[in-house]
């Protein structure tokens, strides 16, 4: 499996070097490549059955790359590569007129690779990495038209929500991983009981579900998906059918053996799924733009998938897997059709469309068949799916009629949406004559054509799917499973009558909407009334207020007043020092009274006085003089306490500093009076608190006994190794010679800075 991913990476990188004809045919090349992968994976699986590969990754953390190909990942990888190939063929048609197609194809190829990475992953940390990759890549794809503000906003919204969800999911993975002490999905399945009995289960499950819900656009995170249709249509087609939003469903299937089968699982999934299912189709019916309708029906389909996983019976999971395939087929078709119509007529609005069945008969047939599948009518595969879903809902063990009712209601609306979709584009009389600007070429029609035909074939001969593919996947979800048979005709039973009712009611709703245009109007009014807020608005508001709160916080914390920054540093340091001081307060002074040091006493006192005076002096020259006094005083102290070199250096440096100050002072103004006495008192208090604790620290320092080995080493080896009798000098120029060299460099840089600052800018020659 890893070779597939590496190949995709290599291909997408090599796209950068495509030139000439190859560049023109880039999409077709990738399509052939994807078809090759499709064949390769199919060959691998059909010959070998389940395959697992693993490579060491971080052995210290017990992490390894695990790739496996089983029934579930087989279905998904077939969809990804198969629909991927068709999408690239279609993109050749759709993207012809645009610039910057090379990065676009690179992102799209990488995106399919990331999706394959998710479905092959046998390790959840690794899965998480691919999961986040799809979020980032879909962001790049949605912002293809980045000149449009709406595209940027929608892409940001999608990225933000899916990444937040991803983080939550990572938390959940780690929580549950800590129960099993492994991130390997296989280990999770083995220890399913331990996981479900642990107290971390609920928290972990909820966090993981947040990740799944954001990715799969479940209520209340559904609102990013309609925005994402700002992407070029091939992307939408891919994103909505086989990839991205299906990743959540994939993970539900994968984690079902380890996390599923509990009341929490049932209630959370079926509630979120039912709500999502209903609101998706409820909003779809009134949309006025082709892609928008399709986006909302995707939300509906995702809700159905989640609900079926929540119901959690053998039948419902079977229905879900079948529905996944059905939906991928018809949704990819419909998006491609939408793109074709957009390209041919230049509009995506239903109001400007109509009567296209004569101009575009082929497209009309494709749409008709795909919407039949969406509405769940025979002979399409969708019919089977809907029957199976109804069967699953009727047979819920906890017999919740609510789920059945809401399911039937949303299916009635879905039938109406399907009818209206075809009617508005192809059948109704247009308000103005629709102008066909360009006929779609073969590339634009291959994709939808193949998918529709497949959908028809599978509908007529369902055993092709049911025989192996779905059974294999089911065997990965349930340990004990009975093989399923899929049939087109089930006979006259409850399910059949429910279906009949759904279809008739759906047609009636559609007819009503067509006949009485006022209904739409009042319905919209009604929606405005009952919907207290829109999720996108809430999102925008939340982000805005987050920014403004942190701006306010910044205004308080980052006020820009230099001295208040310093003030808080000194205050905090003092508090820490004082508290440490208080902790270790019991120590004894050991002071020898030095009787013979009268004159050093005077030097010290003078220096103390100088430092006090410096604070209150208002004259600049006087301050500099005081500075000099204290500096020289310190030099004398060094001299007295056996630090000859220090004394010499201090005297030199002090002299230079005083001279520098005097030079600069000529060019500077007098000290301005900038603070009143209150501020001065406050600052003095802070300075005293800090100064006192530092003084005490100095006293305490004399009590500390240092390890004397360094002292011994330097005194002994000064002459032996450094050939110098002044130990300090030998340390500086010999033992620590490189440090001194660094110091020289620092001084050189400072000198360079000074000379640059003081040089007068040369006048420009005119």
């Amino acid at each position: 499996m890893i070779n597939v991913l590496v190949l995709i990476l290599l291909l997408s990188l090599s796209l950068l070097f495509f030139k000439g004809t190859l560049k023109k045919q880039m999409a077709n090349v990738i399509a052939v490549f994807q078809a090759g992968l499709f064949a390769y994976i199919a060959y691998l699986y059909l010959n070998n059955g389940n395959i697992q590969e693993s490579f060491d990754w971080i052995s210290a953390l017990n992490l390894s790359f695990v790739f496996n190909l089983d029934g579930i990942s087989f279905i998904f990888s077939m969809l990804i590569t198969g629909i991927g190939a068709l999408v690239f063929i279609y993109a050749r048609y759709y993207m012809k007129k645009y610039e910057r197609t090379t990065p676009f194809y690179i992102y799209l190829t990488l995106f399919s690779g990331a999706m394959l990475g998710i479905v092959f992953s046998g390790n959840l940390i690794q899965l998480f990495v691919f999961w986040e990759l799809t979020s980032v890549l879909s962001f790049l794809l949605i912002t293809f038209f980045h000149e449009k503000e709406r595209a940027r906003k929608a892409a940001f919204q999608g990225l933000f929500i899916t990444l937040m969800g991803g983080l939550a999911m990572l938390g959940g993975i780690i929580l549950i991983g800590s129960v099993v002490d492994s991130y390997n999905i296989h280990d999770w399945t083995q220890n399913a009981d331990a996981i479900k009995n642990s107290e971390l289960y609920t928290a972990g499950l909820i966090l993981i579900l947040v990740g799944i819900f954001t990715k799969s656009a479940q209520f209340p995170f559904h609102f990013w998906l309609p925005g994402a249709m700002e992407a070029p249509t091939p992307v939408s087609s891919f994103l909505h059918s086989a990839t991205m939003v299906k990743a959540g469903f994939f993970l539900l299937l994968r984690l079902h053996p380890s996390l599923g089968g509990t009341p929490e699982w049932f209630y959370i999934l079926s509630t979120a799924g039912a709500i999502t299912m209903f609101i998706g189709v409820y909003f779809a019916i009134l949309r006025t733009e082709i892609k928008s309708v399709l986006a909302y029906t995707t939300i509906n389909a995702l809700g159905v998938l989640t609900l079926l996983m929540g119901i959690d019976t053998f039948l419902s999971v079977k229905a879900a897997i079948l529905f996944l395939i059905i939906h991928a087929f018809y949704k990819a078709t419909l998006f491609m059709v939408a793109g074709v119509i957009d390209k041919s007529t230049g509009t995506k609005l239903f109001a400007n469309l109509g009567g296209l069945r004569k101009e575009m008969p082929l497209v009309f047939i494709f749409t008709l068949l795909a919407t039949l599948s969406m509405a769940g009518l025979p002979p399409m595969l969708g019919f089977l799916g809907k029957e199976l879903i109804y069967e699953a809902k009727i047979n819920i063990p906890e017999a919740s009629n609510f789920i059945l009712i809401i399911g039937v209601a949303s299916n009635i609306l879905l039938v109406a949406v399907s009818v209206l979709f075809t009617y508005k584009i192809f059948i109704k009389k247009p308000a103005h004559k629709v102008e066909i600007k360009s006929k779609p070429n073969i590339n634009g029609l291959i994709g939808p054509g193949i998918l529709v035909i497949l959908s028809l074939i599978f509908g007529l001969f369902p055993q092709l799917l049911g025989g192996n593919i779905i059974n294999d996947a089911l065997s990965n979800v349930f340990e004990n499973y009975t093989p399923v048979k899929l049939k087109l005709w089930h006979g006259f039973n409850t399910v059949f009558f429910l279906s009949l009712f759904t279809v008739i009611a759906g047609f009636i709703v559609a007819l009503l909407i067509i006949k009485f245009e006022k209904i739409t109007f009042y319905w919209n009014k009604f929606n405005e009334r009952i919907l207290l807020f829109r999720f996108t608005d809430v999102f925008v508001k939340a982000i805005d207020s987050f920014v403004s709160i942190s701006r306010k916080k910044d205004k308080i914390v980052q006020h820009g007043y230099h001295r208040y920054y310093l003030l808080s540093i000194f205050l905090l340091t003092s508090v820490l020092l004082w508290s440490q001081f208080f902790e270790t307060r019991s120590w004894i002074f050991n002071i020898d009274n030095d009787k013979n040091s009268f004159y050093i006493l005077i030097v010290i006192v003078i220096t103390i006085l100088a430092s006090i005076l410096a604070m209150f002096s208002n004259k600049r020259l006087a301050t500099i003089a005081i500075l000099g006094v204290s500096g020289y005083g310190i030099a004398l102290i060094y001299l007295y306490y056996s630090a000859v070199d220090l004394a010499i250096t201090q005297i030199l440096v002090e002299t230079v500093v005083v001279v520098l100050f005097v030079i600069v002072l000529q060019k500077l103004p007098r000290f301005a009076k900038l603070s009143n006495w209150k501020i001065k008192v406050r600052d003095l208090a802070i300075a005293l608190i800090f100064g006192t604790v530092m003084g005490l620290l100095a006293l305490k320092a004399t009590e500390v006994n240092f390890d004397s080995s360094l002292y011994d080493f330097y005194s002994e080896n000064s002459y032996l190794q450094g050939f110098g009798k002044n130990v300090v000098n030998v340390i500086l120029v010999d033992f620590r010679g490189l440090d001194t060299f660094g110091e020289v460099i620092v001084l050189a840089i400072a000198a360079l800075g000074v000379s640059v600052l003081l040089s007068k800018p040369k006048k420009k020659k005119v």
Partner: protein
Amino acid sequence: MEILLAILIGSLYTAGVYMLLRRSILKFIIGIIFISNATNLLVFMSSGLVKGNPPFTAPDGTPLEQTADPLNQALVLTAIVIGLGVVAYTLALKYKFFELTKTDDLDELKQTEEV
């Protein structure tokens, strides 16, 4: 004598911090000097004070007993020189700043650009 030296260090720090908290940039620079002097003294003192016995070897190169600790002195010597670099640079910066803005007030340095 240690007590007196500790008082000196304390008052040097007090003066330094007080000067750092002023709005005048010139005073700010003087504050830096006080604080670096105080820190030098603190490091110097921490190895214990030794009178009249600098860290030299005997004329024949053998180590002497009870000399002052050379390590602190080497550290402080480096610090003094670096301190000079810092002060020279900040003074030049201050000079340029005043030339461009005609102000000595740190509070007017709040923004990096026009808002």
